[in-house]
């Protein structure tokens, strides 16, 4: 008697528009990457385009244009951040303007808060206990989410970070198969922690869609296991104007243009109109131009 054939495995591939539509307004959304590297920019722009608002943002230890652009739209409820800036290129204009005018609710965190909070969140533990001697710094004073407990065995006081459990995680990986097994070709930063800590939906965008047979050849390269991932979106150059580690460099020229535009509120609206709102990803890419993408990919074979 013939064995019963396996029924088809569920593929998770969605269009950018469909994936963004999975994000309800008022969600707590974690956005991956680090600084000028590996943030899911195509997803971020789509989210703005669809007008998904009133979001609470959870950022990695360092964030740049992903956070700054979302802040610029004025549609955030709250931002949990440790560093928002453009590293060697400059400060974050929309973040600065919003912080200095008091129009943004900022939960000032730091790397210890974000990383340890995500660690606790990943294990569904209520909080992370910091070691003795983690004290004296002022994010612990101004951030009301930090708290202290006494170790019942030693009677010593310890600073604690509450678990961070986003509803949604938006992550970018260089490669991913249709079942959600993702590969980072550089450091995975806090992306895996974010995926683990997220309670509702993890959406992975990727530059290259790979076949699962490719994944199986080198399973040790999988940085996020597929069972954590709910949707996969194939968007080549999906980090632009940021770098996708191992594939292409950041577009400093475009980032400069962004900083110049966003120096004023009206410039920000011009930028949004040209590169975000009245356009889609295909049109965005044609505005940047194939030559530019080729240049950014030059000499950047897999690390």
């Amino acid at each position, binding site marked *: 008697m013939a064995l019963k054939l396996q029924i088809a495995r569920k593929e998770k591939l969605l269009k950018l528009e469909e994936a963004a539509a999975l994000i309800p307004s008022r969600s707590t959304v974690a956005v991956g990457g680090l*600084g000028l590297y590996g943030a899911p920019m195509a997803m971020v722009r789509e989210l703005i385009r669809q007008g998904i608002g009133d979001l609470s943002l959870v950022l990695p230890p360092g964030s740049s244009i992903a956070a700054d652009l979302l802040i610029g739209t004025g549609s955030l409820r709250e931002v949990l951040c440790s560093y928002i800036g453009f590293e060697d290129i400059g400060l974050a204009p929309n973040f600065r303007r919003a912080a200095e005018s008091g129009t943004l609710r900022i939960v000032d965190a730091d790397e*210890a*808060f974000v*990383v340890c909070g995500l660690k606790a969140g990943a294990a569904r533990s209520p909080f992370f206990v910091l070691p003795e001697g983690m004290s*004296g710094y*002022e*994010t612990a004073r101004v951030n009301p989410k930090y708290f202290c407990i006494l170790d019942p065995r030693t009677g010593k006081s310890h600073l604690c970070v509450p678990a961070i459990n986003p509803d949604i995680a938006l992550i970018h990986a260089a490669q991913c198969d249709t079942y959600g097994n993702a590969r980072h070709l550089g450091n995975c*930063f806090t992306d895996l922690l974010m995926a683990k800590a997220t309670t509702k939906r993890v959406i992975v965008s990727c530059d290259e869609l790979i076949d699962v047979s490719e994944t199986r050849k080198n399973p040790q390269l999988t940085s996020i296991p597929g069972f954590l991932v709910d949707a996969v979106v194939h968007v080549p150059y999906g980090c632009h104007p940021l770098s996708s580690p191992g594939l292409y460099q950041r577009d400093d020229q475009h980032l400069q243009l962004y900083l110049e535009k966003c120096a004023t509120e009206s410039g920000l609206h011009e930028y949004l109109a040209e590169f975000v709102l009245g356009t889609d990803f295909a049109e965005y890419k044609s505005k940047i131009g194939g030559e530019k993408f080729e240049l950014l990919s030059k000499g950047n074979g897999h690390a």
Partner: protein
Amino acid sequence: MRDTQPYTIAELIAVVLARHLKDDWLAIVGTASYEAATACRLAQLTHAPNLNWLFGGVGALNPQLKPMPPSSADFRSMRGAEAVVGIDEVGDYELAGQIDLFFAGGIQIDRFGNLNLCCTGDYSRPKFRGPGSVGLPFLSKAKNIFTFTRAHNRRTFVERVDFISGVGNLDGPGSRGRAGLVEDQGPRMVVTNLAVMDFDPKSKRMRLKSLHPGVSLDTVVKNTGFELLQPAHVSQTPAPTEEELQLVREEIDTEGILRRI
């Protein structure tokens, strides 16, 4: 005359930092810290072959930096490295107190070596909003801290930071202990575009150590927003040697980032 010197300020800072790195240390370098990264590699090539250092963002152990990448989060920071460790793993080493030396900086630095990367003015309505404290809270667990900046002026060097992103000697003698920190750990050295400073072990205050070539005592005093302790004899910072400069330019920063910034 500054213009006729055969090295840039960033190169001088890197060389001075390198000379103070110890052979058995584990050091950590943050984002866009070109001088610190160069210093670690230079120390390995000169007097500290056993120095281990982690390049922030990307978590690279002992990368070769030929050339220097634009950011420590850049994947090219991994080139020639011996391991790549995750952000959470780096956090473990930092929390466990395993890091011998942290390189740090800030938008404000005060006389006790406390650092601010968050904001100036009142926190609830900041005059200037900086990027945020990032990894500076880990300074609470640092055995040694080297601070560096190319902005030695009264805006940066203030009597008291408006916000403590990373601890130095807090309010002076005894205050680290009272805050739960190890009393005799913390800031050791500050290297700027004008001078080298250390900390007086008794008063815990910043003290002038040497003036860079061509810089007068008056210039340093005028550009420091607090009373800088002065030793009996102020020496001159030894300029980079030909060998040091050659190593920096030909073996580390081959694309010349330290010559441009």
